[in-house]
C-alpha cells in the first residue's frame, strides 16, 4: 500500500480514507457551485447565460449593471476553462492609436473580404464601428495590454488585416480576456451556476420556460426558470475529435439545444481548418511557423507549395495551404495513415537562435507531443479544424435575438453573421466581447418588457423526462461505447466532410452520421453514479455533436460551390448567382430541413477574393 501512494501524502491519504468512509456525508455537504434557490428549483432569472467564455462573462457583466436584473452564468466546467483562453493573436478594433490611418470601414472591408462575401454587411459595419470601444472598455476593466510609447495599448497587424488593429497580451490574448472578465465577475458578485451541464432549453408554443441541467456534483437534474437565455457555449470543433485545435468542451451544446427548440443553425458547413495542427493530436502550431519561414515538405522532401502557390509558397492563405496539404496526402505523398496522416513542416534552415526566440511554443509542442526537436528534424503536421463560422441563427445583430422570443446567442456558437465563410485572425475575441455585450443589453431589455411567460408544468415535465433518461442510459450494461461512436463520427466528418468535400462522399457521410444517431440511442455510457458523472456528460456531448455533424454535412451537400472554408471538389468556383446566401438548417421533429436567406449587402460589392 505504502508503495502505491506517493511518498509525501501517504499519511494524509491514509487518514482521509478512514475519515471519509466513516462519515459518508458527501451528499449532505452543500456545495456553493449552485445557488440554493436553483437546487430547489425556485430561482427565476431575468437573464440566464449558458457558457462562461468571453461572450458569456461579458454578457453577464453588462446585464448585471442593472441591479434589478437577476442574472447568472451556467457553465459545465468552472468559469475559466473556456476555449476563449486559447485565443492567441489579439482583439481587432479600429482605434487608430497605433495606426492612425485605420478606419472602421477598412476593418469592415477586411472582414467582409476575408469572409468571402458571405457576411451580413450591416452587422459587420455595426461590429467594426463598435469593436474599438470594446478595446478601451477592456483597458478600464484591467486587461493587461502590451503598451506603446504614448502609454496607450499597442495594436499589431494580423493576417488579412490592412492595418495594425489587434490589441493583445503576449500570445495569450484570450487567457487575459477570460481572467480580466472573471475578476470583474468575482468582484461584481455575478452569480455562477458552475459545473452544471445544460441538457435542454425548454420552450413550449414558442414560449421560453427555462433550462434543464445536470448539477455535475450531485447528479441532480435541476430546472432553472428564466425570462431570457443567452446561449454562449462556443464552437463545435470536436465533431472532428482529434483533428481539431479546439478544447474538449467545444461540443456544440448550445447549437444542439437551439436546434431542438426550432432555432435554425446558420451556415453550418462553414468550418475553418488551420493548416498546421500536430499530426498526432491536432494541437495548433502557431501561424508564426510559416511566417518565420518554415517549409512544407511531402514524403519525397519536395516543397509542394510550388505547385499550388508558386509565388507565395508557404505564405499563401490558410485555406489554400490547408487544401494543398490535403491534396498531397490524398494523392499518396504524405506519411502515416488515417486521421494521423501528415506532411512535414521543416524548420531546419532557420537559425536555432530564431527558433528559440520566436518559435519557443512551437518548439516545445513539437518536442512534447511528437518527440521531434525541430532544429534537427521536420515535424509531421496536418490540418486541424479551428473555428466554426456558422452557428445559432441570430436574426437581430443589435440585440443578438434569435427566432424564439427570449432566446439570445453570442460568441462562436452564434452566427450573426460577421465571419461569413471564413474568419479573420483577431476578429473572434472582438466578436465575443462585442456581441456578448450586445446580448447583455438585449436580453435584460426583453426580460423587462415581456417578463416570465414560461410554463412551470413544461419545466417539470422536462425535468422528469431527463431524470428518466439519466436512469435509463446509465443503467445500460451493453451497447456501442460512447467513445467508439465518437471516433466513428470523427472519421466520417474528417474523411467525408473535411477540408475537401464532394457529393458522393458527403452523401456517404450523411448516411454514416444517420447510422450513428441510431446507434447513439442504444449506446453504453458505463457509469451509473450520480456523483460527477463525466461519462454521462460525454454522452450528452456526443449527442449534441451528432446533431451538429448532421447539419454540417447537410449544409455542405446543399452548397454546390466553393467559398471560404467550404471547398467542393466538384464545384471548385464561388457561385454568387446561386449561393450568395446563408444556409439555414432547421430541425423539425427528427428531420432536418435546408433553406436559404440572402446575404445582406450594403457597401461592398462581391469581388474575387485575392491577396
Amino acid at each position: 500500500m505504502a508503495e502505491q501512494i506517493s511518498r509525501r501524502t501517504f499519511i494524509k491519504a491514509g487518514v482521509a480514507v478512514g475519515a471519509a468512509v466513516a462519515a459518508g456525508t458527501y451528499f449532505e455537504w452543500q456545495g456553493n457551485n449552485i445557488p440554493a434557490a436553483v437546487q430547489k428549483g425556485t430561482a427565476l432569472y431575468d437573464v440566464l447565460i449558458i457558457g462562461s467564455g468571453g461572450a458569456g462573462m461579458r454578457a453577464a457583466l453588462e446585464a448585471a449593471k442593472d441591479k434589478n436584473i437577476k442574472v447568472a452564468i451556467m457553465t459545465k466546467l468552472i468559469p475559466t476553462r473556456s476555449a476563449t483562453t486559447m485565443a492567441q493573436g489579439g482583439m481587432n478594433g479600429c482605434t487608430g492609436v497605433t495606426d492612425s490611418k485605420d478606419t472602421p470601414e477598412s476593418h469592415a472591408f477586411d472582414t467582409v473580404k476575408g469572409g468571402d462575401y458571405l457576411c451580413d454587411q450591416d452587422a459587420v459595419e455595426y461590429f467594426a464601428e463598435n469593436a474599438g470601444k470594446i478595446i478601451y472598455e477592456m483597458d478600464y476593466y484591467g486587461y493587461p495590454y502590451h503598451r506603446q510609447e504614448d502609454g496607450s495599448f499597442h495594436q499589431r497587424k494580423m493576417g488579412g488585416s490592412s492595418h495594425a488593429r489587434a490589441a493583445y497580451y503576449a500570445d495569450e490574448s484570450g487567457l487575459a480576456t477570460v481572467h480580466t472578465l472573471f475578476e470583474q465577475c468575482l468582484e461584481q458578485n455575478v452569480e455562477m451556476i458552475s459545473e452544471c451541464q445544460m441538457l435542454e432549453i425548454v420552450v413550449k408554443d414558442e414560449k421560453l420556460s427555462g433550462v434543464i441541467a445536470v448539477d455535475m456534483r450531485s447528479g441532480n437534474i435541476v430546472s432553472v426558470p428564466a425570462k431570457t437565455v443567452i446561449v454562449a457555449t462556443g464552437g463545435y470543433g470536436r465533431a472532428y475529435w482529434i483533428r481539431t485545435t479546439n478544447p474538449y468542451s467545444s461540443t456544440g451544446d448550445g447549437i444542439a439545444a437551439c436546434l431542438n427548440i426550432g432555432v435554425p443553425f446558420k451556415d453550418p458547413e462553414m468550418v475553418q481548418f488551420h493548416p498546421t495542427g500536430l499530426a498526432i493530436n491536432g494541437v495548433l502550431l502557431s501561424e508564426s511557423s510559416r511566417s518565420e519561414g518554415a517549409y512544407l515538405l511531402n514524403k519525397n522532401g519536395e516543397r509542394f507549395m510550388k505547385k499550388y502557390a508558386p509565388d507565395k509558397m508557404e505564405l499563401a492563405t490558410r485555406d489554400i495551404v490547408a487544401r494543398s496539404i490535403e491534396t498531397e496526402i490524398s494523392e499518396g505523398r504524405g506519411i502515416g495513415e488515417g486521421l494521423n496522416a501528415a506532411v512535414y513542416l521543416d524548420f531546419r534552415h532557420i537559425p536555432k537562435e530564431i527558433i528559440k526566440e520566436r518559435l519557443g511554443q512551437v518548439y516545445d509542442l513539437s518536442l512534447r507531443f511528437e518527440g521531434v526537436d525541430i532544429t534537427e528534424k521536420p515535424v509531421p503536421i496536418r490540418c486541424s479544424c479551428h473555428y466554426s463560422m456558422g452557428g445559432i441563427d441570430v436574426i437581430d445583430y443589435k440585440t443578438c435575438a434569435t427566432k424564439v422570443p427570449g432566446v439570445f446567442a453570442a460568441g462562436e456558437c452564434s452566427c450573426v453573421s460577421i465571419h461569413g465563410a471564413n474568419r479573420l485572425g483577431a476578429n473572434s475575441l472582438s466578436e465575443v466581447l462585442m456581441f456578448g455585450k450586445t446580448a447583455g443589453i438585449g436580453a435584460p431589455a426583453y426580460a423587462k418588457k415581456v417578463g416570465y411567460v414560461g410554463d412551470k408544468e413544461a419545466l417539470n415535465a422536462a425535468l422528469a423526462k431527463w431524470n428518466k433518461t439519466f436512469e435509463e442510459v446509465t443503467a445500460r450494461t451493453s451497447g456501442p461505447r460512447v467513445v467508439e461512436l465518437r471516433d466513428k463520427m470523427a472519421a466520417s466528418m474528417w474523411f467525408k466532410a473535411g477540408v475537401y468535400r464532394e457529393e458522393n462522399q458527403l452523401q456517404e457521410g450523411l448516411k454514416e452520421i444517420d447510422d450513428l444517431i441510431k446507434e447513439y440511442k442504444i449506446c453504453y455510457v458505463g457509469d451509473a453514479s450520480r456523483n460527477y458523472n463525466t461519462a454521462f456528460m460525454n454522452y450528452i456531448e456526443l449527442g449534441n455533436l451528432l446533431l451538429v455533424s448532421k447539419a454540417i454535412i447537410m449544409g455542405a451537400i446543399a452548397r454546390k460551390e466553393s467559398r471560404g472554408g467550404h471547398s467542393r471538389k466538384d464545384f471548385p468556383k464561388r457561385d454568387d448567382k446561386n449561393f450568395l446566401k446563408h444556409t439555414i438548417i432547421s430541425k423539425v421533429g427528427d428531420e432536418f430541413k435546408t433553406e436559404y436567406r440572402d446575404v445582406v449587402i450594403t457597401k461592398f460589392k462581391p469581388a474575387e477574393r485575392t491577396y
Partner: protein
Amino acid sequence: MMKYALFPGCVLEGAAKEAYMATKKVAVALGIELVEIPNWTCCGASHAQGVDELALIAINARNMAIAEGMGLPIMTVCNTCTLELRQAKAKLDSDKNLKAKVNEILAKSGYEYKGTSEITHLLWVLASNPNVFEGKITKPLKGVKVAGYYGCHLLRPPKVMNYEDGKNPESLEKIISILGATPVEFDFKLKCCGFHAFFTAERDVMTVTGEAVDSAAKAGADMMVTPCPLCQMQLDMYQPEGRAAVKSKVEIPVLHLPQLIGLAMGMSKEDMGINRHISAVEKIK
C-alpha cells in the same frame, strides 16, 4: 586540490558555530581548501529581500564580487544563503539592464560584479566528487539509519537550484551511503521545517517541525542529517515544541551534514560540537 571561497553566513558565525567548526575540520581532512570571503555580509536571509529587493541583489553582488576578486568559486553551507546568492546571480546574469544598474550602485562603493564565480554548496561539492572520501571513512556508520532532510532552499525554485532534480533528489542519500550508513526514506524529506515563518505563524511552524521529525522517527531513522543549519536549528532546538504540536513521543538527534561526515571519519562527538545540540544528543555514539 579543490579550493573555494567560503561564504559562511550569519548563522554559522552565531547559533550554529558547531557547523562552522565541523565544516572547517572536515574540509581540511578531505583536502578541500576553504578561504573565507573577507568582509562578507548577510545574504538577506530571504527576509530583507522583502524590504528592498534591488538593495539585496546589490548586497549579494558585492559578496560575489569579492569572491570574483579571489578568483575562486563560492561554496556555502547554508541552504538559504545558497539560494539568495544564486538567485541574485541568476537575475544579474539574465538581465543586462539589471546588471548595469547594480554595477552602477556597486561602482560608487568600488566594486564590480562580473558573474565569473559559480556558487555551490558543500553537499553538491561532495556529491560531485565522491572520490574525496576514498580511504578517509575510517569509522563507517554501519547499521546506522539516517534520514536525510534536504530543506527547501537547496531544491527550490528549480530553475535557480538546479544541481539535481528537486522533485527526486539523491545527493544526500549518496553521501549517507558513502559514510557507511543506511539512508531512510520518509514522507517529509522534501518538506519545509518552517524556520522562515517562525515569528509570523508559530503554531503552524511547530506543526511542520514536529511532522518532519515524527515522520523520520516513524520511518525508523536513528538520526536526521541536513545540509542546512537553519533546518538543523529548527528541527533540533524546537523539537520539543514541534513534537508536542503533533503529539510525537520519539526524540531524535539532528546533525549538520559535516558533523555526520566527521563522525564517519573518526572525529569525536565533541570535535563536531554535537554537545551544542539539545535533542537526543545521547543517542549519538
